[in-house]
């Protein structure tokens, strides 16, 4: 499990008692009335380790490097999915002399995972839709992992059954009941507005999925670089918000707008009003094959998931690159060597409290743009700017439950914890059941609760994020979950809470086809950029594609 080691000033593990809750949360009192004594639980407040960066920002003088610099073909800055994918592609090209510098104690970035006895669990990213056949690189990775078992000549992708999210996949808590699926309205009645608009919306998304530009590219593809960048109708979507687009199209069904808003918050950490309509449509259209002839056939790509979420991919890659990954190495500077032929990367080795230097023919910068300006010498000289790159703050809580909450028979088939359990009209995104994929439907489990911070200014969100204590967040988590599971508090044994200050890039209005994003992806001499923020959407597939693309640029210059 990743914790903020070596970061004592910011790590605030707190404990609390049950008595204290009685004073702070009215909901807890209701729970107390049910008669079961509640066991006090505790947990840790975690966050990614940015201590070195913050110390440098606050004027800390770094020690002098000792010893001669080591030489490498490629140095990868950042051990998230983008960095690990770059290493994967470099290895495919036969480039072995690669070092990955990771600031934290484990690789993985937002795809990292943790493990308790009941189950492994994700700390953020937790699923990947089955890639379509044109996403060849990613399919190769999944084939190597024995997840994808076959890609047929006609483009049929076969995934081993145990990796596909098992049913029940999702359910939504609406008006005191759990409903199957994610739509918080009855769709039994064919003539209801909610149903008709949903059908109309699906048909429209299917049309977007079928649309091709003059070069034969999809309007919305995963990875997004494979989609069109020239179709004016597609590009124009980026000029308005998804809320505006829906209004323009006449979608006023509350249930439908909630569903799309949920999708935006889920994938981008943005509300309907904040999300670029391009990204809003992308969320749905990129996952439809477009081959369906009727609504009945229309199905999004199935979802692949694992108890540890995308930590499954991190584990695979970091095992393979165990020798190349150097954890607790915070890069402090990237400069061009005087000869102009190679790069010098300086990093602080936290474990040994010393500076190290590496000389590399190429650097893959697999970290977010907001770090590029601070770490790369030439960056500002090159006239680059990343002010439109905005990153959302998230809170992710992992809860160890000693048993599942009770279910009401009235809810029929939805009366069973699904993989994704969404609470309608909540600020949170609900929770994902980590042990779902193991097949267990009873007994202890870990649930992962997600909550994006939605303020218009992400800096304000980050302030809120940092000001609040474990107790504050625990109270919010509890109040939220208690709406659907009144007795949840009696079941919680531990709650660890991760604060992600810069969890994911946000595709706000105008960002996708703005100048900054396009420029950011271009190499700066021998520095090649690789991060999901270059795609504007924080998907594993995007991070992977960016990593692979950056790796392919190495050795070329």
């Amino acid at each position, binding site marked *: 499990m990743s914790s903020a080691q070596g970061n004592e000033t910011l790590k605030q593990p707190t404990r609390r008692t049950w008595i204290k809750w009685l004073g702070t949360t009215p909901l807890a009192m209701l729970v107390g009335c049910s008669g079961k004594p509640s066991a006090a639980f505790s947990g840790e407040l975690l966050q990614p380790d940015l201590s070195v960066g913050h110390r440098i920002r606050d004027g800390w003088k770094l020690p002098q490097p000792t010893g001669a610099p080591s030489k490498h073909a490629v140095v990868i800055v950042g051990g998230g999915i983008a960095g690990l994918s770059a290493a994967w592609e470099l290895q495919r090209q036969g480039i072995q002399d690669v070092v990955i510098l990771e600031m934290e104690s484990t690789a993985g970035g937002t795809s990292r995972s943790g493990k308790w006895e009941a189950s492994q669990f994700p700390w953020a990213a937790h699923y990947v839709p089955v890639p379509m056949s044109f996403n060849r690189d990613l399919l190769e990775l999944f084939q190597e992992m024995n997840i994808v078992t076959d890609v047929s000549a006609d483009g049929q992708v076969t995934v081993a*059954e*145990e990796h*596909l*999210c*098992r*049913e*029940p*996949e999702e359910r939504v808590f609406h008006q005191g009941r759990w409903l199957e699926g994610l739509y918080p309205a009855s769709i039994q009645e064919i003539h209801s507005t909610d149903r008709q608009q949903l059908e109309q919306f699906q048909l429209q998304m299917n049309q977007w999925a079928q649309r091709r530009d003059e070069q034969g590219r999809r309007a919305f593809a995963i990875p997004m670089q494979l989609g069109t960048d020239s179709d004016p109708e597609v590009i124009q979507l980026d000029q308005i918000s998804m809320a505006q687009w829906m209004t323009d199209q006449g979608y006023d069904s509350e249930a439908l707008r909630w569903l799309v808003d949920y999708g935006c918050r889920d994938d981008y950490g943005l509300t309907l009003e904040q999300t670029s309509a391009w990204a809003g449509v992308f969320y749905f259209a990129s996952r439809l094959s477009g081959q369906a002839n009727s609504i009945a056939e229309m199905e999004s790509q*199935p979802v692949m998931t694992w108890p540890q979420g995308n930590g499954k991919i991190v584990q695979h890659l970091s095992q393979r690159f165990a020798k190349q990954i150097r954890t607790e190495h915070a890069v402090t500077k990237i400069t061009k060597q005087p000869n102009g032929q190679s790069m010098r990367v300086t990093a602080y080795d936290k474990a040994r409290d010393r500076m190290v230097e590496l000389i590399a023919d190429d650097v893959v910068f697999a970290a977010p743009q907001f770090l590029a300006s601070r770490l790369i010498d030439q960056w500002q000289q090159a006239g680059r700017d990343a002010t439109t790159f905005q990153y959302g703050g998230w809170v992710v809580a992992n809860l160890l439950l000693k*048993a599942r909450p009770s279910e009401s028979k009235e809810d*029929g*088939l939805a*009366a*069973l914890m699904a993989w994704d359990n969404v609470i309608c009209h909540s600020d949170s995104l609900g929770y994902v059941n980590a042990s779902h994929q*193991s*097949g*267990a*439907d*009873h*007994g202890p489990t870990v649930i992962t609760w997600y909550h994006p911070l939605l303020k218009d200014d992400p800096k304000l969100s980050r302030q809120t994020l940092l000001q609040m204590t474990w107790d504050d967040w625990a109270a919010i988590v509890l109040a939220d979950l208690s709406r659907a599971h009144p007795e949840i508090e009696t079941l919680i044994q531990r709650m660890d809470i991760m604060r992600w200050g810069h969890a994911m890039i946000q595709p706000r209005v105008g960002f996708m086809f703005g100048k900054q994003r396009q420029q950011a992806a271009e190499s700066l001499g021998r520095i090649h950029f690789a991060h999901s923020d270059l795609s504007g959407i924080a998907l594993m597939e995007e991070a992977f594609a960016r990593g692979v693309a950056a790796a392919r640029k190495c050795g070329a210059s």
Partner: protein
Amino acid sequence: MINRAPNYLLYLNVLVIATCGLIYELLAGTLASYLLGDSVTQFSLVIGVYLSALGIGSWLSRYVDTGVARTFIEIEIAIALVGGLSAPILFIAFAQIAWFRILLFGMVLLIGILVGLELPLLMRILKENLDFRELVARVLTFDYIGALMASLLFPILLVPHLGLVRTSLLFGLLNAAVGIWGTSLLRPLLSQRSVTGLRTRGFIVVGILVVGFIKADSLTSLSEEVILQKPIVFTQHSPFQRIVVTKDKENFQLYLNGNLQFNSRDEYRYHEALVHPAISSRDQVHDVLVLGGGDGLAVREVLRYPSVKTVTLVDLDPAMTSLAEKFPPLKELNQDSLNDERVTVINQDAFVWATEQQKTFDVAIIDFPDPSSYSVGKLYTTRFFQMLQKVLNDDAVITVQCTSPLVAPQSYWCILNTLSASGFLVQPYQTSVPTFGVWGFAYARYTGTDVSDTRPWQSRRALPDGLRYLDQSTMQTLFQMPADIAPVDVKINRLNDQVLVRYYEQEWGS
């Protein structure tokens, strides 16, 4: 002063007391025979203990010197509490404690003593106002009328409509009402202080019984009893399911989450058909796996073969297997199979168990509940059947209960197609079980590496002794599928797309 109260009220009092007393006795007797079996012995013992306790009570009444009226009302309230709670307490205790008989007869004794105290005390109270000859004649008359009413009401009205638990609580309330009423009737014989004290206690007991009445739903819901139309003799809400046992005449029935699992009257037809086609089709069977089937009835059939060396039973719910090991009627029915030394009971979700299992088996008997939820539906998926192959020896055979092919053809054929798609060689077969109707099974062979071996089902050994339904020729007929059970076009049940659960809901749902 007491004679101001109309006489008929006093006799009504006697009537109620007598009815309640007999009801408690009948409740204890019924519960004992339901739970412990052998109704003649149980009723005989309960009646014996109860009558002798009445005697003890009557004898003890001589030690009540002063405050006879107060003592009488106190006893009323005590009976209300103990008698009213007797059935719920015995009901809950049965699943929890090993010394159930001691508790049962202890309660019968206590109630008997208290009831035995009632009439002598009441007669002493009334003797001031009535001629002794008249008193004895009337009180005893009403006592026996009460007994008659109880014995008529109990089987005709109370057990079928209220169930045992609510009957007990209802008569407790009646007893308490008599007690509280008594504080008015006997007001001149009581001090102000004792009236207040008695009423307070009376109302507390009423409160307890009312709460019990409301909570009784969690024990046996009224609707459940109405739906099942049979007296419920055992319920348990395990973390996994609701287990209910009902009883009618000579037979009992097991329900899980409201779905009938078996009726002791004809379960042998089902279990013989489930087990013997599998085991008899192999020359040698040493290790047998039973999945689901926590009732121990399939295991009973497996154990009939002396060549079987081990039986591994995997059932999710420890409450279910423990019921099969301890609940006397079930233990008798399964011939104590789960306590056989060849049997190992594992309480785990079979899906999770299969991912971790190392041992391999010659035969697997799959007796899961019908796929009415996703948590059961996963046990009928290609993924599960493929995991199952990993614990089977080459040329292993399995049989699977597959719901009714007549009521739910899509569900039935979906399970068979899913087995085929998972690499099994599958044959449908069916039998008829009066309680269930036509019931469907799958016989499937895992040929392992030898895919050319496509021999159909064939009996290869003699059937064991003790079967009530199957012989060799009957077993052959199970594999003849009638025309109204023809295959239908259905999809395969996969972990990520559990069509079976939806077929099942459509076909069995209302």
